[in-house]
C-alpha cells in the first residue's frame, strides 16, 4: 500500500488496460473515486445548495454513521443535474425534491432508474415576500393589487425605474417573469444568480430597514432572522400553471419528496430502509438549519445536537 503516487498511475493504467481489454465500460455505473476509501459500507447523498436540504443530509448522515455504521459521502449538485446523477448511481439519494415532473417522468416512469421513497414530511411553498417591518408601515402592501402603488419603494439601480422583484438561484423553480408580465405589474425581475447572493442582499436590506420584495420559500431559516410576510397573489388552482407563459396565479404547496437510486432502493440494505423511513416536520428541519446557518455550527455538530434532543423522532426511522 505504501506506493508513491507517481508509480501508482502507470500501475493503475496498466491494470486498467488489462481489465479493459474486453467488454463494455458503462460509465453510468461508476462511483466517485473518493467514495468507499474507508472500507466498509458507504452511502452517497446529494446536498442541494439551500440550508434546509443540508439539514436533512446532516441528520441522515449523522444517524447513518453513528447508529448504522455506514460511511457517508456528500456531493453538492444542483437540482436537475442531481436527478441525472441519481439515475446514474453517482449519488444514492435525494432527500428533498421540490417537484420536477419532466425528470420524474423520464427517470421514474420510463427508465425506472430512480425509485420514489416517500414524503419528507415537510411541505414547501414558494411565494413573494416583503419584510414584516414594511407591512407595519403599509398594511395593504400584502395584496398584489396594491404592489404597483408601492413600486417606487422597491426601485434600485438594477431595476431600471421599475420596482425590483428579486429572484434567486437559476436552479430554482420560478414563474416570476411570466407573473410580472401577466399581472401587468410595474416591476422588473432581477436575478441574484445564487441563493448566497440573495440572502446576503436581504440581510443587508433588513439591517438598514429598507423595503424589498423577493421571491422566497418556506421552510427557510432566514424567516427567523428576517421576519417576512407573504404577498397574496391570485390563488392557486389545479392546472393554472399548465402553460408556463400564461401563468397568473400563486405557487402551489408542495409536499417535498425523497428519491432513491433504483438499485440502491432494492439492495441498499439498512441504509435504504432508513432513508425510506426518514420523515420529520418543518420545525425539526428549521431547528437544524438555524443551528447551521445562524449559530455557525458545522452540519455534523448541529445534527448531533438535534439527535440528542429528539430521540423519539429518529428512533422510529431505525426500527
Amino acid at each position, binding site marked *: 500500500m*505504501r506506493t508513491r503516487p507517481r508509480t*501508482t498511475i502507470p500501475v493503475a493504467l496498466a491494470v486498467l488496460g488489462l481489465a479493459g481489454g474486453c467488454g*463494455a465500460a458503462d*460509465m453510468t455505473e461508476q462511483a466517485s473515486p473518493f467514495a468507499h476509501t474507508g472500507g466498509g459500507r458507504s452511502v452517497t447523498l446529494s446536498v442541494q445548495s439551500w440550508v434546509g436540504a443540508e439539514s436533512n443530509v446532516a441528520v441522515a448522515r449523522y444517524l447513518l454513521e453513528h447508529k448504522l455504521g455506514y460511511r457517508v459521502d456528500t*456531493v453538492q449538485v444542483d437540482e*436537475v*443535474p442531481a436527478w*441525472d*446523477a441519481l439515475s446514474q448511481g453517482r449519488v444514492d439519494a435525494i432527500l428533498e425534491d421540490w417537484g420536477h415532473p419532466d425528470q420524474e417522468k423520464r427517470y421514474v416512469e420510463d427508465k425506472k432508474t430512480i425509485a420514489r421513497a416517500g414524503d419528507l414530511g415537510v411541505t414547501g411553498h414558494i411565494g413573494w415576500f416583503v419584510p414584516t417591518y414594511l407591512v407595519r408601515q403599509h398594511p395593504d402592501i400584502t395584496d398584489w393589487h396594491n404592489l404597483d402603488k408601492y413600486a417606487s419603494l422597491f426601485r434600485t439601480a438594477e431595476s431600471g425605474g421599475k420596482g425590483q422583484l428579486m429572484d434567486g438561484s437559476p436552479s430554482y423553480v420560478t414563474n416570476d417573469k411570466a407573473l410580472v408580465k401577466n399581472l401587468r405589474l410595474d416591476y422588473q425581475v432581477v436575478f441574484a444568480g445564487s441563493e448566497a447572493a440573495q440572502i446576503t442582499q436581504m440581510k443587508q436590506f433588513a439591517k438598514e430597514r429598507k423595503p424589498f420584495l423577493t421571491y422566497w420559500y418556506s421552510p427557510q431559516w432566514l424567516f427567523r432572522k428576517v421576519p417576512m410576510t407573504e404577498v397574496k397573489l391570485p390563488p392557486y388552482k389545479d392546472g393554472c400553471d399548465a402553460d408556463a407563459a400564461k401563468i397568473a396565479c400563486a405557487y402551489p404547496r408542495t409536499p417535498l419528496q425523497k428519491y432513491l437510486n433504483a438499485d440502491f432502493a432494492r439492495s441498499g440494505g439498512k441504509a435504504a430502509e432508513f432513508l425510506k423511513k426518514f420523515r420529520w416536520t418543518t420545525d425539526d428541519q428549521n431547528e437544524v438549519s438555524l443551528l447551521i446557518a445562524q449559530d455557525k455550527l458545522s452540519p455534523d455538530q448541529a445534527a448531533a445536537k438535534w439527535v440528542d434532543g429528539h430521540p423519539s423522532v429518529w428512533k422510529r426511522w431505525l426500527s
Partner: protein
Amino acid sequence: MAALTVPVLRTKAPLLRNRAAAKLLLLALITAVLLPLLHGHSWPHHLTVSLTRPLTDASDWIIDNRDTHPLFLYFFGYVSNAVVLSVRAVYVALLAIGWPGVTALGALVAWRVAGPRLAAGTAAAFLACGALGMWEPTMQTFALMVVAVLVSVLLGAALGLAGGLSARLDRALRPVLDTMQVLPAFAYLLPVVLVFGIGVPAAVLATVVYAAPPMARLTALGLRGADPEVLEAVESLGATRRQRLLTARVPLARRELLLGLNQTIMMALSMAVIASVIGAGGLGDRVYQALSTVDVGQALAAGIPIVLLAVVLDRVTGAAGATRDEGPRTIGRPYVLAVTAAAALAARLLGVLDWPNGWTVRIAAPVDHAVDWMTSHLYSGVPVVGGTADWAAHFTTWVLDPVRDGLQWLPWWSVLLVVAALAWLIGTWRTALTAVLALAAIGVLGVWEPSLDTLSQVLAAVAVTLVLGFATGIAAARSDRVERALRPVLDVCQTMPQFVYLIPVVALFGVGRAPAVAAAVVYALPAVVRITAQGLRQVDPAALESARSLGATGRQQLWQVQLPLARRALLLAVNQGVVLVLAVVIIGGLVGGGALGYDVAFGLAQGDLATGLVAGAAIVCLGLALDRVTQPTGRRPRKGA
C-alpha cells in the same frame, strides 16, 4: 503565473499615421457601399439561427443512450473509467502515506528541485492545510490535480512536439491554442457535463481542456526557439533526427517546458474551484458549500489551502526552471524516498495517518466577525464619502447603464465597424477579421443584446482595472519596497478562488452588475500591475539616463520616456486585463451580473443545453473578439521566449 514575457519594443514605422488613415478610409468605404443593406438597431432577426431544437434533441439523445450506445460504452466509458481509477489510485496512495508522509514527500521534493527555503515553505503549507481542518479535501483536490496536470502535460507536450517539429502543424495549432487560452473556464463546463455527467471525470476533463494549451504553446515555442547554430553543430556530428530531438532540442527547450508545466499547474488549480460546480469534490466543493450558508470564514478556510498549494507549486516549478545547470543536488532521490517511507511508517505505527482532530484551528468565526463588521460599517451611511452601496448604485446608474444602453442603442453594424477599426489599428487585418467574424457569430446565435450587456460590464471593469493597475504598476516600478510589499498581495489575489470573495462583494455592493465588476477588478488587477511594472522596469536605462541628463523631472521622465517606451508592455497589460475581466464578469452571473453569465449558470443548473451552450459559445466569441481587438501585434514573438 510566473513569468510573463514582455516583448522588446518595436520602433515606430514612419508611415504609421498614414497607414492608419488609409485603413480607416478603406473601412469607411466598405461601410458606405454596404450601407443600403444595413438597417435596424439590434441584430436583425432573419440573420439569426435558432439552435434550441437541435441542442435539446442532442441532449435528450445523450441522456437516453448514455448506458446503451457503443460510443459511450466503448469510448467515453473507458475514458471516464481511466480517470476514476487513476484519481482513486492517487488518492488512496496519499491517504496510505498519511499526512506525515505527504508533508515529508512534498518538502523533500521541493528541497531537491528548489532548495531548503522552499522545502520549509512547502512543509508549512501542507501543515497549514491540515491545521485549517482541510486535510481530506486538500488530498482530494491534490489527487485530482495530479491526474489532471499529468494528462494535460502529456497531451500538451504531444501537441507542442507536433507543432515544434512541423511548421504547417504549428500554423494550424497556434490560433486554436491562442483562442483556448482566452476562454473563460465557465464556458467549458457544460459540454463536458453533458457527455460525462456530474462528477470527477467531467471535472478532470474540463480541467485538462483548460490547462493543456499553455503546455502545448510553450513546448512548441521552446522547440522552435532552439539556437540554430547548436542544431547545426549537432547535425554536422551526424546525429539522426531522433537524436537531434532528444539530445539537443528538448534539453535546450528545458526552460520553456518547465514554464509550461508551471502555467499548466496554475491553470489547473484555478479550475479546481470552478469545477466544483460540476462535482469535482475536494476543496472547491467546500468553498461552494460554504457559500450556501453565506459563510465567508468557512469558504476562506477552504480557499487558503488552494492559495497555499498554488503559491508553493508556482515557486517550486519556477525555481526548477530557473536553475539551468545540473549543479550538485542537495539531496538524492533514495534519500527522499527513504525519509517519506519512514515518515509514513511511523505515522502508521503511531496511528496518526488522519489529521488529528484536536489540531485544527477554527478561523471561520473571527473571519465572519471581521467581514460582518466591515460590511455593516462600510455599506452605507459613511460620512462625506457615502457607503459602498451608494457607490455601487452610482456606478451602475452613471457608468454601467449608459455604457450598456449606448452599446445597445448603436446600430449593430456600427458595433462591428468600431471593432474592425480598433482591431485593425492595433493589430493586423487578420486580427480585425477574426474579431469581426466572432462578433457576427454572436449575432447569428441570437444573443446580441445580452452579449452587449456583458460587454458593457467588461468595458467598465477594464477601465477601472487599468486606472488602478497602471497607477499601482508605476508605483511598483519606481520603488523596490513597494514591489516587495505588493508581491504576496498580488499572489493571493491571483490564486484566491473567485467564489470566496463573491459574497463579501455582494455584502458591500449589493446584488447586481456592480459586484460582478468589483470582483473582476480584484481578479484582473494583479496581472495588470505585474506586466506594467515589469514593462516599465525593462525600459532601456540608457534612454532614462539621457533624459535625466537633459534635466527632465521624475514626472517628465515617466510621461515622456518610460510610458511611451513601455507601450508594448502596456498594451499587453490591457490584453491580459480584458481576458481576465471577462472570465470573472461571467462568474458574476452568480451575484446578479445577469446577461451571458446568468445564462451559463442557468444552463448548468437546469441541465438546459440550449441556453447554456449558446451562451457559452457567445462568451467564447466575445472573448475571441476582445482578445483580437487588444492584441498588440498580429504575431506573437517567435524568437526566444
